[in-house]
């Protein structure tokens, strides 16, 4: 009989993070993964040709030093040289501004007056993000986790805010639910800078820069830190594949067992308690604790099943907005592209096509009606130019993340892929005139493809919308925002839980801590 202490569904980075924490306590942990790869949505499942793969994500913003330490990632190979990959915001007329250092501490292409205004705004944004950072990384406070200790955090934050002075205090409450466009327009004139920030605030979220609450998206990004550097944008050495590999190595070293190509199909129940999992092949595995790291939609509908859920909860889960809107275009080029206005050095940056706030907003509009944007905004990275250790002889990879490309297209994705590809190419040609000729291979992955390839309903980066009404204590729903579910012994983690998506491992760590805490309490 295959019996464990904990079975984890899904070998995404959060599932692995949880497994490391649990295995280090001496628990016997099994991870069941439906595909042949570890890494979930960050796995190297996307091949450009036989030898070349480039995962969906290409940068990290949210891997904090505590998590790195908790998960022993450095011991198992995590290396980063350059903390801050610069961003360069471009338009179609060869204009650009270069944004580097700790989220724009250095900007080229703007006059000193503007720079001073930006510094002021940035200081305030960093201060606010810093206040919220504590909540980003801890388990949310809710009906079960509401000790005095937890409530004290709010009081401390309030005090930290108030002692900064009246102005800072007032601005916090004024700005919190604003749209990022209004905030930017109050202080800054430069369109390229505003476009970049508007993009950063709304990437992966179904909001435009003029949508109220979109500022929170920017704060979320700025609350991320890497090794103490706030607002960092990191390219780990070896790229994302190498980073994900350190999670895997750390798990296996801790004694975690992995079984691939064996999809979890049903939970095995005894009364209202979970006792194990039945997989696609008909095999059964037993454990008192099951942790599902897949999308809550899947967990609640497929694994728990509607007959075990009360109507109210069922309705809430049904209303989760799980349809994604981000696509990925990976290109394999036969040489480093030559730009008509960017220097070779600037090609080691994240290049964003983000001419202005209005441009980003205009491209957001069609997505509300399940249509493609006219002139899509995207961010582009050349992983092998940034990281010389990553060069392979097959060619230069261009990794492009495209915004506002909805999961359900009125015209269907089959007929729209070529259209989207051409639109991106047209824009790329204004930056790199000869790029089209040097394309050896290309792969365009829509949210629909993400759903199929990675087994994520809706193909959503965050599993379900990461907006204020579904953040923190409300994620995925208020009743179950501390990694527990209505089923005894069944837990959840992953992007669909706090703190959301992005490679941080926090959700896995928090869920593991919750499991450990609960089991300790039950034993008393």
């Amino acid at each position, binding site marked *: 009989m295959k019996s464990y202490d904990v079975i984890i569904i899904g070998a995404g980075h959060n599932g692995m993070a949880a497994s490391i924490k649990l295995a280090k306590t001496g628990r016997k942990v099994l991870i069941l993964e439906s595909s042949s790869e570890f890494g979930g949505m960050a796995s190297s499942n996307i091949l450009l040709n036989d030898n070349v793969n480039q995962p969906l994500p290409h940068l990290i913003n949210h891997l904090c030093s505590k998590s790195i330490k908790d998960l022993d990632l450095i011991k198992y190979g995590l290396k980063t040289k350059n903390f801050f990959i610069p961003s360069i915001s471009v338009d179609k007329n060869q204009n650009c501004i270069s944004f580097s250092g700790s989220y724009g501490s250095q900007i080229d292409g703007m006059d000193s007056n503007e720079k001073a205004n930006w510094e002021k705004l940035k200081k305030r944004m960093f201060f606010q993000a810093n206040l919220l950072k504590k909540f980003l990384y801890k388990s949310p406070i*809710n*009906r079960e986790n509401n000790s005095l200790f937890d409530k004290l955090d709010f009081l401390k934050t309030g005090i930290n805010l*108030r002692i900064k002075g*009246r*102005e800072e*205090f*007032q*601005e916090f*409450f*004024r*700005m*919190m*639910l*604003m749209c990022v466009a*209004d905030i930017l327009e*109050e202080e800054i004139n430069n369109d390229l800078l505003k476009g970049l920030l508007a993009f950063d605030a709304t990437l992966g979220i179904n*909001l435009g820069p*003029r*949508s*109220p*609450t979109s500022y929170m998206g920017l704060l979320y990004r700025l609350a991320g830190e890497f090794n103490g550097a706030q607002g960092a944008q990191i390219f780990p050495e070896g790229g994302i594949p190498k980073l994900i590999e350190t999670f895997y190595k750390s798990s296996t070293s801790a004694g975690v067992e992995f079984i691939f190509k064996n999809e979890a199909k049903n939970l095995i129940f005894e009364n209202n308690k979970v006792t194990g999992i039945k997989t696609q092949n008909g095999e059964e595995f037993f454990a008192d604790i099951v942790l599902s790291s897949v999308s809550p939609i899947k967990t609640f509908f497929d694994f728990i099943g509607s007959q075990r859920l009360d109507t109210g909860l069922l*309705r*809430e889960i049904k*209303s989760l*907005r799980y349809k994604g809107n981000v696509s990925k275009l990976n290109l394999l080029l036969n040489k480093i592209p030559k730009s008509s206005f960017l220097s070779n050095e600037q090609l080691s940056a994240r290049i964003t096509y983000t001419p202005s706030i209005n441009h980003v*907003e*205009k491209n957001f*509009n069609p997505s*509300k*009606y399940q249509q493609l944007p006219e002139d899509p905004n995207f961010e582009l990275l050349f992983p092998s130019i940034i990281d010389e250790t990553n060069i392979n002889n097959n060619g230069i990879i261009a990794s492009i993340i495209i915004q506002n490309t909805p999961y359900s297209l009125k015209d269907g994705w089959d007929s729209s892929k070529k259209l989207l590809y051409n639109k991106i190419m047209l824009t790329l040609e204004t930056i790199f005139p000869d790029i089209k000729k040097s394309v050896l291979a290309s792969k365009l992955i829509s949210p629909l493809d993400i759903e199929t390839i990675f087994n994520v309903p809706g193909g959503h980066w965050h599993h379900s919308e990461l*907006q*204020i*009404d579904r953040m923190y*204590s*409300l994620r995925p729903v*208020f*009743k179950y925002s501390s990694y527990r579910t209505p089923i005894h012994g069944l837990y959840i983690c992953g992007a669909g839980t706090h703190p959301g998506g992005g490679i941080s491992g926090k959700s896995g760590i928090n869920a593991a801590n919750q499991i450990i805490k609960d089991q300790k309490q039950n034993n008393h």
Partner: protein
Amino acid sequence: MNSQHKNYDVIIIGAGHNGLVNACYLQKAGLNVLVLEKNDWIGGAAVSRELTPNILYSNCSYVCSLFRPEIMRDLELPKHGLQIIGIEGGTTFTQDGRYLANYRNYHSKRREMARFSVKDSEAYERYSRDVTRQCRFIQPLLMRTAPDPASFKSKDIGEIFYLIKQFNELSPDQMAETIRFWTMSISDYLDEYFENDVIKASLALSGIIGTALGPMSPGTAYVLLHHYMGEVDGSIGSWGYARGGMGAITQALSSSFKSFGGELITESEVENILIKNNQAKGVALKNGNEFYSSNIVSNADVKRTFLKLVDDKFLPPSFVKKVKNFKIRGSSGKVNIGLDSMPDFPAVPKGDPCIKGDIHFTDSIERMEKAYDDWKNGTWSQDPFLDMMIPTATDPTMAPPGKHFMSCFVQYCPPKVYGKDWTQEKKEAFGETVIKQIEDYSPGFREKIIHMEIRTPKELEDEVGLTEGNIFQGELTFDQLLFNRPVPGYAQYRSPLKGLYICGSSTHPGGGVMGAPGRNAAIEILKDLKKPTSHARSAYEVI
């Protein structure tokens, strides 16, 4: 008596409904109050004007619900002629020739909904319960001055505790619900209850009236609440017609004001507020006259008050910057039409009361959102969203028998077209967009038009003084509500200058013909002047 030299206790700039409410409470407390109005008629945006012979137009605001019943009683408005007639229902017409009526009677409403979706008609019970719960939470706050959370004064700390207590009375689940409600779009919120597009659209519409947001913008669930918080004759969420048009409200207020001994002068546009030693001293009119008082209350919006009427050398620069950042965005237009006879709406059975209420043409939230996209783009909506009413079908006093006044409120209409000023040509094109749409649903409509007044935000600004024609004197988004309205630190009707106050919709609790800002400001002023406030009764218990 030469009123120029008489020193008044309070001078109020603007005879809009909030200014008049403010004036009444102050005069009733025994102060000597003077109201100065720039036009030769009073009422601000709550007016009835005879724009074509014999027909009265409520040519700005057109329907009544939010006016606080407590104020109506305190100021004895029914005694001064105010009568509000409840609307029995409204209707939404779809492009395929159907209609969805919305009756005030709960069971009729649900039966009607069931014609479109039985599931949704059942969900409506949950929906109305949940929205009413949100109303119950917010309503007590309307008639209370917002606290200043940054202050350590005992009254502010006391008010914060009051708010916390209110919030704590909710169960944790209800708290979560409330937070979600405040941060969601009306579209997403409705998706959690309903499946039918027409039903969702008909419920979403009050989430966008007067705002520069679309139904898919977060925060519009709150705007819906704002429109839901009123009542007519105890029926919460109902709307009604003031007999004689919206001007009846301000006429009653003016009559009440004068009955307490107040003085009101029209054709007196204030050009400048006189300041000396950081203290208000009086006002200087455009025509050269001056009036003196050490208490000046402005009913104009916060931008007009502090950027036009006060020299900025008297104001702290950070305050001026914040006022400049306060968002007042014109998003609505109005087309007021005098008709020869009642329009036909063949989709609806003859005699159905629903066409006497609010009439809309919409099939889906998507259609409304597209109208918003046009506005963002800088022009008026090519397929605008209309909120139309024919008050004369219910109120016989506004027009001769058989003739009618139709009010069309239009979302969306920008203050400038692609950044350039409105021209007569563009205005007419805008009017035509509206008429054309109505014609689609009401054959022969055009031939019934006797007279038409097309109002873009520009007209509203020029005539009534509302900056950019925004009917709320400022957007109703969270960054501009409660202790943020109009500016953090100055959300209690006072300004940086001693004796200078504001009482219009730019202040808490915001716009609509409510009267609460005017009343709350009066209470603060009376407190400052150490005068009694007991004649301003507090908010009724919400059941």
